[in-house]
């Protein structure tokens, strides 16, 4: 690697959030994790799974947006990451569909 940063990198580094911002995000992440774990101890009924998925997505977005700096970086990186994620979600959806169809055929 080179000894110096490119002007583009220097410009990016100039827009970094402060350490306090990072700590605040970590506190929010901690609270969200506590909420997730609460589903194990308390009964949330049919809201349990949707709540877990929403909390997971929020945590994911907070980490990639703030800690991985996607909010502040060029959009190309966001596109790369979300493309990979989209492919993974397609795979995930196909699996869920297969599971559903398997269960459906077992019932009929």
């Amino acid at each position, binding site marked *: 690697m080179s000894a110096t940063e490119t002007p583009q990198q220097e410009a990016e580094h100039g827009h970094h959030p402060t350490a306090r911002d990072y700590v605040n995000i970590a506190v929010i*992440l901690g609270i969200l994790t506590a909420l997730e774990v609460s589903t194990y101890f308390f009964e949330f009924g049919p809201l349990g799974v949707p709540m877990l998925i929403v909390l997971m997505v929020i945590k994911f977005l907070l980490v990639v947006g703030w800690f991985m700096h996607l909010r502040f970086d060029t959009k190309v990186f966001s596109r790369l990451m979300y493309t*990979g994620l989209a492919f993974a979600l397609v795979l995930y959806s196909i699996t869920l569909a297969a599971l559903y169809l398997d269960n459906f055929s077992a019932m009929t």
Partner: protein
Amino acid sequence: MAAGAHETSLGIDHRKLGMWTFLGSEFLFFGAFLATFLLYVQTTAGGPGVEIFDIPFTSISSFVLLMSSLTMVLAHNAHTQGDLRRMRMWILATAGQGAVFLGGQVFEFNVFVREGLTFGTSPFATSFYVLTGFHGAHVFIGILLLLTLYTFSLTGKVKPNQPLKTEMIGLYWHFVDIVWVVLFTVVYLIPELTVLD
């Protein structure tokens, strides 16, 4: 080397572009294992199933890994300000938390094996160990990268004006963290709610 020598035609540093491309492909890698786990989550072949999970224990190790992302980003922040001493402190804290997480995983696997959930017990067991084991391997590689960065910063191979080196390892580390955010929910918490009901 002249400034801009590492830029692509997009004006983006090619090392960072390469790292993001790698991370994007890693989603598919873990997506495939996660999909396999979901297919076999109830195929326990008479062996232990998801009831074997110790959610409070895994919650603590998940929290430790989540907080390691904070120390990692603080290390990058310190490096951006040219403060290598503080950067090294946060890097060690991150590696330490990674080691705690990994230790927890080894402990968890040992407990599971003692309770009859070995690698070949069932499709559920195999898919679980492959998925979480590969994640553990990523954490282990991350710790090695962190310790290498720490050593290089001591020997002068990483300089105060090169925060990109910390950022690159940080991207990898945060990726490992977000994968666990997904695994913790999909592998541990959701099956506890759905399969056991």
